[in-house]
């Protein structure tokens, strides 16, 4: 830990004024734009506050009770739970597989990397627009393929109450797995070459190599990526807005969509604030587990 000792010495030289200069800009941005709104949202969710109301009254937990007893919200929680439990592991596995394939020298590696990052560069909303057409009947890629193997034309699976959620999950995996690969590649590069060679010489299968060499070495990185993916998944909003709009029925509604519609659509500010805080609570809960796991590694 020579680095830490050196850092310890230089601490002496960071004056109070230096610290203000260093921490003030980010502190203003984060406090003013993230933390203050989040805290005000928490306070507002305990009242009947609305920007358009004349007076504010405390309402205790009634907003939360109303949200939790709304069948639309419970459907949204169930959808996002399925989305998170299916999409996050698959995104990790597929992203890991792609990073594994891109490891080491290969012809045109830079080109492969850029091409395999492209889906993540598409915004969730643009991805929704794109798949809306690609899954549609007349011009889409799905029916083109089905037509060649002689299947009859299918209506878009996004309009089918049983297929809408699996389709949304598949589209999200298409968009996010490339990000996992991108984030894993620097980690793969940091694994010493001898470890690969040892595994190869001992005749380990690629599966054994992945589990015994790569996963232990990349544990902190995999944890960090999982945290980001869980946050992304629990906040799913733009990925369903155009693709399915939350339907058909309640089959793809998400808590973020619910919360947005309550606050800005139905003008029911208190329910919007309360349901938004339930999303935040979910992510902060995952964050507690994440920080605990990250610490158990560090110590």
């Amino acid at each position: 830990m020579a680095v830490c000792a050196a850092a310890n010495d230089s601490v002496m030289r960071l004056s109070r004024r230096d610290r203000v200069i260093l921490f003030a800009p980010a502190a203003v941005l984060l406090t003013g734009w993230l933390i203050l709104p989040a805290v005000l949202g928490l306070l507002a969710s305990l009242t009947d506050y609305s920007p358009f109301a004349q007076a504010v009254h405390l309402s205790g937990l009634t907003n939360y009770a109303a949200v939790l007893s709304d069948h639309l919200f419970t459907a949204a929680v169930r959808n996002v739970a399925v989305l998170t439990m299916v999409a996050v592991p698959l995104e990790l596995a597929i992203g890991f597989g792609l990073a594994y394939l891109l490891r080491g020298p290969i012809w045109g590696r830079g080109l492969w990397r850029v091409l395999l990052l492209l889906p993540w560069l598409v915004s969730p909303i643009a991805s929704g627009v794109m798949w809306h057409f690609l899954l549609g009947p007349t011009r889409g890629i799905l029916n083109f393929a089905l037509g060649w193997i002689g299947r009859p034309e299918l209506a878009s699976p996004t309009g089918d109450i049983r297929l809408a959620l699996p389709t949304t999950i598949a589209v999200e995996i298409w968009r996010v797995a490339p990000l996992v690969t991108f984030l894993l590649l620097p980690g793969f590069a940091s694994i010493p070459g001898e470890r690969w060679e040892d595994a190869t010489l001992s005749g380990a299968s690629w599966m054994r190599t992945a589990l015994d060499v790569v996963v232990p070495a990349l544990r902190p990185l995999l944890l960090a990526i999982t945290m980001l993916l869980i946050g992304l998944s629990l906040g799913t909003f733009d990925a369903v807005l155009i693709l399915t709009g939350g339907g058909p029925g309640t089959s793809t509604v998400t808590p973020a969509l619910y919360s947005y519609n309550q606050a800005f659509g139905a003008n029911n500010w208190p329910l919007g604030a309360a349901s938004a805080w339930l999303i935040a609570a979910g992510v902060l809960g995952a964050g507690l587990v994440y920080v605990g796991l990250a610490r158990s590694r560090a110590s």
Partner: protein
Amino acid sequence: MIGMRAQRRRDRTVRVLLLVAALGIFVLPLVWTALAALGLQANNSSSPPSFHGPPTLDHFSEVGLAEPSFWQELFTSTAAAACAAVLAVAAALLTAYGLARSRFPGDRLIIQWFLVLASLPAMAYVIPLSDLMRRAHLIDTFAGVVLTEAAVTTPLAIYVLYGALVQLSTEWEEAAWLDGASIFSVLRRVVLPLVGPTLGATAIILFVLDWNLLLVPLVLTAGGLKTVPVAMIDFFTFERELEWPTAAAALIISLLPVAILVAVFHRVLDRFALNVAPAD
């Protein structure tokens, strides 16, 4: 040994085949979209399905007809994402440096909480934020969008830059401090040249994230200012649905700036790493 070489050759073939399959899944949908934008559309009603239409660039100009302010929106998106990325990286560099060169109990935990903050969905705070920004008269302003986009992406930038800074040897900084350099000249002359590539990579990734944000610009604007993702919501309303080739052209235009940026700087992007705990 020969067996091993054959094994290696087989491995390499399998690897290339799998990569080609991955390319089919991940890139073919985008190629399909690009072809439609160029006038080459699938016709699934014929049997077997076929492609038709002469190649044309007309669909790109149709975007401007279907959405008259599209080019203005493209400019707004670019300017806002660029300003926000620069602002966020600058603020994050200062804080990451301060954290990396301070020792206090739980410093490693604090930095992990920045990752949690980076994972927090925008929905968790945009409802009250829209109210605050309205009261501060920042709704529908460029400054409002830029400041918010910067704030949203700052935690991730702090996390990545801290990871890079904490692994630097502090020898050069020590020397500069001994020479009586100020904090700014230490940052500019010593730290910046060492973490320049990481800083650039972070700025590019932040630009992509800002460029694709929807919820933030959506709730902070009321029609006076629009980014491309916000405009795309209007492609499908009850009154109209955009034709596929026109929508495809708009998609390709919205993808091109970030795709070019990433393609040009892909070597530098290696430096964007979430490695706070150095690999042992």
